[in-house]
Each structure stands twice: as structure tokens, then as C-alpha cells.
């Protein structure tokens, strides 16, 4: 609280407008940033960068995407004229210190997520992070969608999970409310898209990969997993194999879930 409060107290009077809307924010030009930097001390820039990093890390604990409008409104505030510089430094810190990559997943609404740059290892880590069990569930769902060429009706997913003794209608020991995790949590985290199919009665939905999954999850790994499951070579699924290895030999399988 100390730093944050002090900073916001000193300058809060300058900001009275409500700026929920990103349209009120125009990205400052390079020369504006230059001029802005001349008016602040390096320590102030460092402080703001640290606050932006912290803000992202808190949101990332729940894998929530962060909108530019929210960064400006809640953190950057009166330093908005040097926003690009602050973001540049934050991205550098994520890269150098945390092994994370700051990625803009929506250029229109300027929405960002953090992606892990470190590859998942074959050997299990000696320390299990608490988020792990749900990631297993996600991996299964992403696999089904990928093998069905990118889109499946929700019933297919629910039936697959039931076969694995995960009943979406019941409370699961590790996952809790399975239906909510899949259709709400994974969707908000941008791992999945859950969209209503138009003109269906009763209402039907379908699943696709979300933006985070596209960047973070390796399709090559999914194919390897399917191969092991069925005792086949990953090449057996030629269309999926081509998709997982686009230019045939460029980096098969980079990082996936944390």
C-alpha cells in the first residue's frame, strides 16, 4: 500500500475524468514520449514500470487478459504520456527476469496476456504448482477440438469427459464445477472459445481454440500425446501433422501450459 498510495495521493487531483473507455486514450507519439520522459525522474519511470509488472502478475495468476484501458486507468494514470516507454520496459522485465512474453492478443481493444517462454519439460517438476490439474482437463479438450479440425459441438466435449469419468453435471474433486471451469474460466482465460451456434433450438454451442491456446499450446505435443494414446505415429494424422509442423521443420513444439 505504501508506495501505491503515496503516488496516487499526490496526483489524483489531476485526474477527475472517468476513463473507462479506451477511446479516450490515444497512443502518444515518439516525440511526445520523449518530451514526457524529460519531465519525470528515472526513479518515477522505474516505479511505474514496477507497478505495471505487478498488475500483470496479479492478473496472470488467474490468467486474465489485461486491457490497455485498464492499465492506463488503474496503474499508469497521469504518466499516460509515456505509456509506450513503460510498456516497453515492462515487456523487457518479463522477458529478462520472469521468462514470460508480453503478447498483444487483440490489436483493436489492445488486450495483452503473458505467455511462458520456457518450454515444458519432459520430466515432471519436483514442485507441483496448484494450477496443474485443470491444465490436464484443458489439454484433453484442446486435443479433441484439434483432432476434429478446429471446431466441435459442446456435446462431443461433454461425452468425451464423461467417458473419462468427469461428469460436467457433478462437482469434481479437483476441478469443482466442471461446466463452469470449461465454459467460463477457460473462456475468460482465452484458452477456449464457446460460441452459440445460430438458429438452433434448443440452444447449442460449439468450442474452438482460444487465442491463448493458439500461442501457448503446442499442437505437435498434442499429436504426440494422441499418438501415444492410440499407439500410432503422429504422422498418421496427415492434416493435423501439417498444421502442427507448418514449414515442416521449423521448431516442432515450443512451450505449452505452465
Amino acid at each position, binding site marked *: 500500500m505504501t508506495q501505491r498510495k503515496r503516488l496516487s495521493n499526490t496526483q489524483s487531483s489531476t485526474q477527475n475524468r472517468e476513463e473507462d473507455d479506451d477511446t479516450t486514450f490515444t497512443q502518444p507519439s515518439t516525440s511526445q514520449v520523449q518530451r514526457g520522459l524529460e519531465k519525470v525522474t528515472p526513479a518515477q519511470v522505474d516505479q511505474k514500470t514496477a507497478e505495471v509488472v*505487478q498488475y500483470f502478475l496479479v492478473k496472470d495468476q488467474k490468467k486474465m487478459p489485461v486491457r490497455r484501458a485498464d492499465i492506463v486507468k488503474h496503474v499508469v494514470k497521469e504518466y499516460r504520456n509515456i505509456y509506450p516507454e513503460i510498456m516497453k520496459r515492462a515487456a523487457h522485465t518479463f522477458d529478462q527476469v520472469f521468462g514470460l512474453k508480453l503478447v498483444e492478443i487483440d490489436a483493436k481493444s489492445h488486450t495483452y496476456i503473458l505467455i511462458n517462454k520456457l518450454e515444458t519439460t519432459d520430466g515432471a*517438476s*519436483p*514442485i*507441483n504448482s496448484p494450477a496443474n490439474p485443470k491444465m490436464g482437463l484443458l489439454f484433453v479438450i484442446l486435443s479433441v477440438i484439434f483432432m476434429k479440425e478446429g471446431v466441435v459441438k459442446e456435446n462431443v466435449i461433454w461425452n468425451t469427459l464423461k467417458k473419462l469419468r468427469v461428469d460436467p453435471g457433478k462437482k469434481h474433486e479437483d476441478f469443482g464445477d466442471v461446466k463452469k471451469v470449461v465454459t467460463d474460466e477457460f473462456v475468460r482465460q482465452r484458452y477456449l472459445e464457446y460460441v452459440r451456434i445460430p438458429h438452433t433450438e434448443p440452444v447449442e454451442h460449439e468450442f474452438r481454440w482460444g487465442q491463448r491456446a493458439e500461442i501457448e499450446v503446442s499442437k505437435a505435443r498434442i499429436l504426440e500425446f494422441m499418438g501415444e494414446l492410440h499407439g500410432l505415429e503422429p504422422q498418421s494424422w496427415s492434416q493435423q501433422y501439417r498444421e502442427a509442423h507448418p514449414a515442416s521443420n521449423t521448431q516442432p513444439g515450443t512451450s505449452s501450459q505452465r
Partner: protein
Amino acid sequence: MSRQMGDSHRRFLQTMMGSGIIDQQGAKTLYQYCCETHNTQHAPDKLDDFIETINSKLQPMFMQIRKGMSEDNGQQYYALVNMAETDVTRMSSDYADNELELFGKTIELIVGSENGKASSTDILNSADMLTIKKLKKSETEHVLNRLVHDKWLNEKRGEYTLSTRCIIEMEPYIRTMYQDQVKMCHICRNMAFQCQICENPSCGIKIHNPCVARYFKGRSEPRCPACDDFWPHEIPEVRHTRSQSRR
């Protein structure tokens, strides 16, 4: 060794961000695992140097991997702490204001107690005095369960203690908020909650139970290290594993 961070440091840090706290043995194993994964040199006795390198880069972000002792078993632990908001605001994204107030009341009860514990009854009673928004009994119990689950509190037989992570992370906050009440362990000089107290009224020093065990080990007649009065408490045995952590 250079102070540059490599992927082994980054992987170590990422794991710490996921788990919040690990014991020393876990940290050693993780250190080795991270070095092997990224083919970097692993010197078993250099764990603290390795962590220092991470800390030098974390410092501008007001974060730190800090070491502290568990009051239950005397083992060393490493916790990733946030110094920008060492106090309760750190938790404000997870807890509502009145829930944080309840947590504050619980800390207050524990700091004010002699044995570093607060009973669930006392906490439930203090929930009636919340100024922001009252919590029902069931809600209070639910909040307490979450605080235990999130590793801020420990619970045993209806009594709550501060977790090791909480003590490491909240130390500056507790020291400022309760500077008149907080006592330091006479042996290790850290804050002491669950401890033994010298019964000489003019002395009254506190010693952590595991520090008592280590300090008095092998001494035939235990005497207070400050006033030299007889030490009247039962001397716990030095423990080596976490599994026997109940006194």
C-alpha cells in the same frame, strides 16, 4: 559466477510464483532440477547465491525471495514476497474488505496471545466487531478456511496460528502495526509467536519452540539465556522431518 539470470533462474522463479513457499529441501531439489533442465552448472552449496542473483533482478519490482523459519518444525523455508505491498493490500484482489478486516483481527489476536494462537471461538467473536460489514458465523468460517487454504493461516484443533509464509511476508507489516506487542525470539532474533516465555516477571523473554529445542539440547539444567533463572518448560526434542511436526 556472474549475476546474470539464465533460464534456470527464470524457471526457479516461475515455480516460486506458482507455489509461494517451499521448504529448504524442496528448494535444493528445484535448484538442481532447474540447472539440469537448462544445462547450467549446479553447485549444491550455492543455493543462496543462486537465489541472490534472482533477488538482484527482482529488487526493482519490489519483490524478493526471502528465507524464514517455520515455528512448527524449525525448518528453513523460502517464500516469494512482495515488498511493495507487504501488508494486506497484496491480498485485496482475492479478499473483500471485511474479510481482510477479519484477517487483521485474527493477526491482532495472535500477536496479543502468549502462545501465538487464536481459538476459532475468539475469532468468531471478533467477527461481531467488524466495522465495514458484519460476517455471519458461516461466512467467517468460510473465510478462515480460505485463509488456511491460501496458506496465510494454519489450523489445528480449532486453533489458528500464522503460517510460515505469512510470518515471512507480513513481518514488516506486523512489526509496524504491533511494535509494542511483538516480541523477538531471544535465540534467532526473529519475531516469535508460538514460543516459550521466561517466567521471571522482570525478564519474560520469548524463545521459539524449535529454538528452545536446539538451545537446550544436551544441557542438564535448563536456564534462561537472559536472566539465568530456571527454565520451567518442557524442552521439546529437536526435530528433523516435517512429519513429526506436532508438539
